[in-house]
């Protein structure tokens, strides 16, 4: 049932995108032609990082939901060059830390090792690494919470409520 809902909204999504006339899609077209900010290896590290921030449990984690790509897209298209540099250097530093401490790239590190690295940044006094983690965490939360999977299956987004009630009891739980 949930899968059917997802497929149906996918079809609507494709329809809507294909339907965009030139004057409307012109607003975002230029940004699509930019090169990606991160290399393939760095993108993999970012995917590992967002999956560590919001991991797979009985539902998919942020990595599987493509949130890494969303984070990179937002920083590439909507953020200034300082934030872009922070994302790149932050990822390099994270990877160096991983190699130093565990002898392997962040992409190959175990789940607990990755979590250890992020928690250490969170507790550290390195302001730039903390800012990097904060930016990625915020965007990861945004990308995850606004993903099709979460909005369709977990938070039950309504496109067309067709009603407004100004005073209803709070539902518990």
């Amino acid at each position, binding site marked *: 049932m949930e899968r059917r809902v997802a497929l149906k909204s996918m079809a609507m999504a494709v329809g809507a995108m294909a339907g965009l006339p030139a004057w409307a899609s012109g607003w975002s077209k230029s940004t699509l032609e930019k090169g990606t900010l991160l290399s393939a290896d760095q993108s993999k590290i970012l995917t590992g990082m967002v999956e560590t921030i919001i991991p797979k449990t009985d539902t998919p984690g942020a990595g599987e939901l493509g949130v890494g790509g969303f984070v990179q897209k937002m920083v590439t298209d909507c953020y200034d060059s300082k934030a872009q540099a922070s994302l790149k250097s932050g990822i390099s530093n994270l990877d160096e830390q991983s190699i130093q401490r565990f002898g392997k790239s962040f992409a190959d590190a175990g789940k607990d090792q990755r979590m250890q690295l992020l928690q250490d940044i969170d507790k550290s006094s390195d302001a730039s690494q903390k800012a990097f983690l904060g930016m990625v965490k915020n965007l990861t939360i945004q990308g995850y919470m606004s993903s099709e999977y979460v909005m369709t299956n977990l938070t039950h987004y309504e496109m067309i409520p067709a009603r407004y*009630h*100004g*005073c209803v009891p*709070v539902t518990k739980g």
Partner: protein
Amino acid sequence: MANFNIDSKKARTYDAIVIGSGISGGWSAKELTEKGLKTLVLERGRDVQHIKDYPTTNMMPWEFEHRERLPKEITDANPIASRCYNFKESSAHFFAKDNEHPYIQEKPFDWIRGYQVGGKSLLWARQTQRWSKYDFEGPSRDKFAVEWPIGYDDIAPWYSHVEKFAGITGNKDGLDTLPDGEFLTPHELNCVEKYFKESVSKQYKDRHIIIGRAAHITDPQQIHLDQGRAKCQHRTMCERGCPFGGYFSSNSSTIPWAMKTGNMTLRPHSVVHSIIYDDKKQKASGVRVIDSNTKEMMEFYADIIFLNAAAINSNLVLLNSTSSRFPNGLGNDSGVLGKYIAFHNYRATVSAEYEGFLDSTEEGRRPNGGYIPRFRNVYKQETDFLRGYAAGFGSDRETYNDRSGLGESLKAGLLKTQYGNWSVGSHMMGETIPKESNYVALDKTQKDPFGMPMLKINVDYDDNDEKMIKDYIEQVSEMFTKAGFKNIRANDNHRNPGNDIHEMGGVRMGKDPKTSMLNKFNQLHACKNVFVTDGACMTSTSTQNPSLTYMALTARAADHAVKEMKAKNL
């Protein structure tokens, strides 16, 4: 083959020409075509047809690749448009880009524009309050600007006329400061809004909290169904264009209605250069247009012309319509054209929290909010500033998700929505005083991309506005305090004039041709077959959102124009 024998001038001649297709232009088109006039509607932007040309209207949140935020490249290239609250990924295509129509800001002015069929009627906030007699009597009582040539009784039937067709939701509140209209079922105030309403009415005899009056169809009548419009579905995605026609726009309502009469010709991509004045006939004979695709200049002719280009652009067109009779702009014998520009003051907000009703929340979405009609200086002058302010008022139950930590605990926190206090907020809508020193004019040397003289805008706040901001903050904070709201925070955002999108004046109405441009039927005093019925015509600004008044003035002027035309007076 080609009709070589056709009289080309005849083919370009209509009974009426309407310049602009936004809120007021749409009404001109509807009224004139319904009365049988062959009408040409000129629009400088592209065509936008109802539903078909709303590309984002059915997109899900996750389908916006930047989740409604615009890429930096776009915001950097459009600093003016970017300061508008509604300029975002889902609606940016309905805003004019900054480079499409540059202007000179002698003082900072955020000129927000929608260049397409329907204009800004696709983007407006849809609040539609009538003016009261106190608003029309303002300039005369308080001795500023010039006296309005009409009063509330002149326009009241026309308010009814446009309300019934557009569809206005509201409650009959019985207030003399904000007359009731032809309302559809009102939206609901939520528990905290109702509580505040009671609190205020207990503490103050002349202050009221009401549900907003807004151009939404809450229970469609036959006239709305006849337009092909349906009930508002509470999506609150109005700025994308509404596929249900749930709110009023030219695109869903007046323009297709006019088209159905068979009397309307719509010409998009038509940048109006000027109105042509015929010295011999001593009246306007047509409109000069630049085709925005070909840059070709062409002329169209008509017996009457309705100028509805939006306030500042209507000023621009008249200023650029020079002739030996009118060297300073069409109808500008008085020299007041372009002067006495005013706007609304939206600078201040007051927010707070309420710790009551914690077992309650809202459900669904409401494309409307609460409203506090003006209560200052209404019956007599009682403060050290002139006029007053209305305010928006609303409350929401705060929800939050625990964003602390990393990993599984973070994930669990995010997926468990928790309730906080109710948040309450208010924003001011202040009346500004039209002054001669607030003006628009044409630059003598610089040209825009169409070779039109560039417009200079010189408009600013004054001391009266500063005093009003202070009073609004004090009074609303006091009302909040008395209601037991906590954590009250006031803010002056210092936004630029123009950012309220309620610019008005420059072609004001008035009794005396020596001090005003338009008579009581919105006709140029000095060129009777030209009517200006958009924001440019406003003598003063009041505190109400202006669109409903433009609609009513337009319908009234069109009725007069057709009667005068039949009586051969034009």
